[in-house]
């Protein structure tokens, strides 16, 4: 019997960092960039690779592989997630494009960054973790 999974009304930018796929609401995904050599941030945790200047704004680059799984994924590409409070660059090894996501949007874990990743969800055949941009921003900037 086929199981009907709810489809969200939002569109998402779907991208991978290593073998893990993520989806970020398209309205928050400003652009995909190839970032230049980064400036290191004093005291930064390993997942905060550094910052770069982009159109007059200093943007922090977060290694999604290190942040989520503790495994670095070398990439010079990033998805810029723009919020009213600022912009984050999330590293991406592959960008699939904009598509709908089906499934649940429950936190994938009780603590840490996984609280701000939602699922289980799919984009086409791929299992994706849906990023809560506001929650991720809080997690990174306030430790929430």
């Amino acid at each position, binding site marked *: 019997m086929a199981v009907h999974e709810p489809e969200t009304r939002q569109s998402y930018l779907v991208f991978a960092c290593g073998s893990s796929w993520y989806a970020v609401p398209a309205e928050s995904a400003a652009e995909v960039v190839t970032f230049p050599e980064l*400036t290191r941030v*004093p005291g930064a945790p390993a997942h905060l690779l550094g910052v770069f200047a982009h159109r007059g704004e200093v943007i922090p680059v977060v290694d999604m592989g290190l942040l989520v799984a503790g495994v670095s994924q070398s990439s010079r590409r990033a998805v810029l997630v723009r919020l009213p409070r*600022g912009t984050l660059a999330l590293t991406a090894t592959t960008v699939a494009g904009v598509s709908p996501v089906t499934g649940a949007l429950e936190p994938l874990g009780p603590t840490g960054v996984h609280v701000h990743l939602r699922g289980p969800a799919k984009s086409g055949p791929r299992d994706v973790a849906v990023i809560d941009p506001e929650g991720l921003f809080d997690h990174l900037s306030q430790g929430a």
Partner: protein
Amino acid sequence: MGPASPVRGMLLCHAGSGRLAFLAHEVLAIAAGAEVATSARLAFRAPAGASRVLVSPTGGAVGVDALEIDAEAHPVLPAPPVAVRASGGSLRGFVLARGVLWPLVGLVEFERFLRGLGGEGT
């Protein structure tokens, strides 16, 4: 995010693989050697060490590997909250000088931050 504002009179420093900028008027003296300095390298996950020491008016000291005095005005871009948190609140912004960004930190606050990392007496 507000517009960039210029700042003049800085010490542009290197520490390990990192760069740092300090406002010159916050530095009372520059000394050689690093026996008692809190090493700025620690903020970049590098072993402690320094060849120059920046001394603050309150007696605090931060060791760096190299520095140059820059008298020109440069824009300061606001620091993103993620970066401010990482540096324990010592980060004031990023100076755009010589074609690259330099984290601008308060000397007293940064020295306090380094001590929190366990850098005292390096």
